């Protein structure tokens, strides 16, 4: 039952690589956008929020197709990246990571924005009056206090990136060893008449991975909560 074949190993390793890259890739932009959304009173924030949440509501195929248009070797960003820094995205694992990052982005932003909104602006004012400039206020007060939200968001985003299917298969296709992540491998095995057993193994594995991720996040949040209580 646990005898993973080479294709399956490749899919597992690739999925972890893609999910990790996607989470890290979206981390800094997500922090910036969530903080801005939490603190901004600008009328623009509604529009930004809608755009950020778009991948959550449009069919993943549509997101994948949009990525394909923009990032394919003929697309305007794709050709620019390839000509300037030689980075190929379409039909490569980097593309899978990009698709996963965009699909996971709203899941990272949502809890993070709520966490930033829960940070008392009075504490930021107090830090400012003690001589901390805006960056320092953010680094010493806002971000540490939003840490539980950040971790919850990261775990959600990681799990989403691990299982992303529609946008990935549309954007980077289903190439074993390059873009065939767990979800795509399960799909391929299910298409073949002899793949049932392999598909089941991967299904169980992906469930186990997701459960581990959630447990990890619970443990981290508990640690942070305990530390901030006992510090």
């Amino acid at each position, binding site marked *: 039952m646990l005898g993973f074949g080479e294709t399956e190993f490749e899919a597992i390793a690739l999925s972890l690589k893609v999910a990790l890259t996607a989470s890290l890739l979206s981390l800094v932009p997500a922090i910036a956008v969530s903080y801005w959304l939490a603190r901004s009173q600008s009328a623009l924030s509604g529009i930004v929020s809608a755009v950020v949440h778009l991948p959550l509501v449009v069919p993943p195929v549509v997101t994948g197709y949009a990525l394909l248009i923009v990032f394919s070797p003929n697309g305007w960003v794709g050709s620019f990246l390839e000509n300037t820094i030689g980075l190929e995205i379409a039909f490569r694992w980097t593309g899978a990571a990009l698709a996963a990052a965009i699909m996971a982005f709203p899941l990272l932003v949502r809890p993070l924005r709520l966490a930033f909104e829960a940070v*008392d602006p*009075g*504490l930021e*004012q*107090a*830090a*400012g*009056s*003690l*001589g*901390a*400039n805006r960056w*320092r*206020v953010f680094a*010493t*007060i806002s971000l*540490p*206090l939003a840490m539980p939200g950040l971790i919850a968001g990261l775990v959600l985003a990681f799990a989403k990136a691990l299982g992303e299917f529609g946008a990935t298969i549309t954007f980077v296709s289903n190439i074993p060893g390059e873009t065939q992540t767990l979800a795509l491998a399960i799909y391929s095995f299910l298409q073949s008449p002899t793949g049932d057993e392999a598909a089941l193994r991967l299904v169980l594995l992906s469930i186990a991975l997701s459960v581990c991720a959630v447990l990890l996040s619970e443990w981290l949040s508990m640690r942070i909560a305990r530390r*901030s*209580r*006992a*510090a």
Partner: protein
Amino acid sequence: MNLSVDITASLGAFELETKFEAVPGVTALFGRSGAGKSSVINMIAGLAMPTSGRISCGGRVLFDATKAINLPAHRRCVGVVFQDARLFPHMSVLRNLTFSSRVGGSTISRDRLDEIVELLGVGGLLHRNPTDLSGGEKQRVAIGRTLLSNPQILLLDEPLAALDEARKQEILPWIEGLRDQAKIPILYVSHQISEVARLADQIVALDNGTVVHAGPVGTVLASLDIDHITGLEEAGSLLVGKVVEGAGDGLSLVDIGQERIKLPGLEAPVGATVRMRVRARDVIVAKQRLEGISIRNQIDSRVVRLSDHNERYVEVVLAVGEQLLRARITREAAGDLDLKEDMPVIALIKTMAFDPLSGSR
């Protein structure tokens, strides 16, 4: 180094138009809730922006509308103690105290830290978490944290308002100690006349965003038209004197200039300066000294001002040496005594009518 404020701002309900100077020592920013006190504090601290005007401290301009100067809060060197303490919940008390040095706001020497820790009595709390502290302890830590940022102006925004009476009494001595040691302007926002009388050297009274009175605490409290801010029952005056004899028979003898008055036993040592507040309704006016009476204080004074802007009673301002004392008597009594300005009278005050607001300055 004086703090000088001359600002206008639109606060929705009214136009704020405030102008005053604060010298080193405690200046009370006094007024009812909603008078604009906290707005003024926020504008001095750089947390809100006036529409026009100027705020400066010594030679440093913090805000000047005409020159488009508006220093950000972190560069103003203005320390604020907020009503709700605002300790950082994810840091220990010690890390809260030294926060300013970690973010480049100040440098804190070991000696200075020890000094502040001792001044505010927070030595036992250093490794505790802010959420485990009582309200009074939190406020002491907040004051220490602000002092350790080396402010050139200290703003205390109703630091006692969120505390119950026992906690207030616990923290007031620390603020008095602060007043006697700090050499910077301290603005103390309050709507409690007893706090103001106890702590302030100067008063700036605000009403609807405008300064209605400014001056030394004794003078402002004795002026008659401040009653609508203090509340009629609380209206009174402040006497300052030196303890000349310790408590014999449970009494202390206090020198207030030409006169000596008796107070309930004070803890203050001989030589210490004490402040005493007495309500206008507790002062009796007589034409001569009386005998066979329980009242211990019969003070020679002179009528400075009479007012009858209320039909039921007459407000009398008396001069006792350099200090002012207020008495509120019925219209009938004022008529019987035939009180006139400049007339010498005796002010009778029960020892027990004084609120001794200890203090060491």
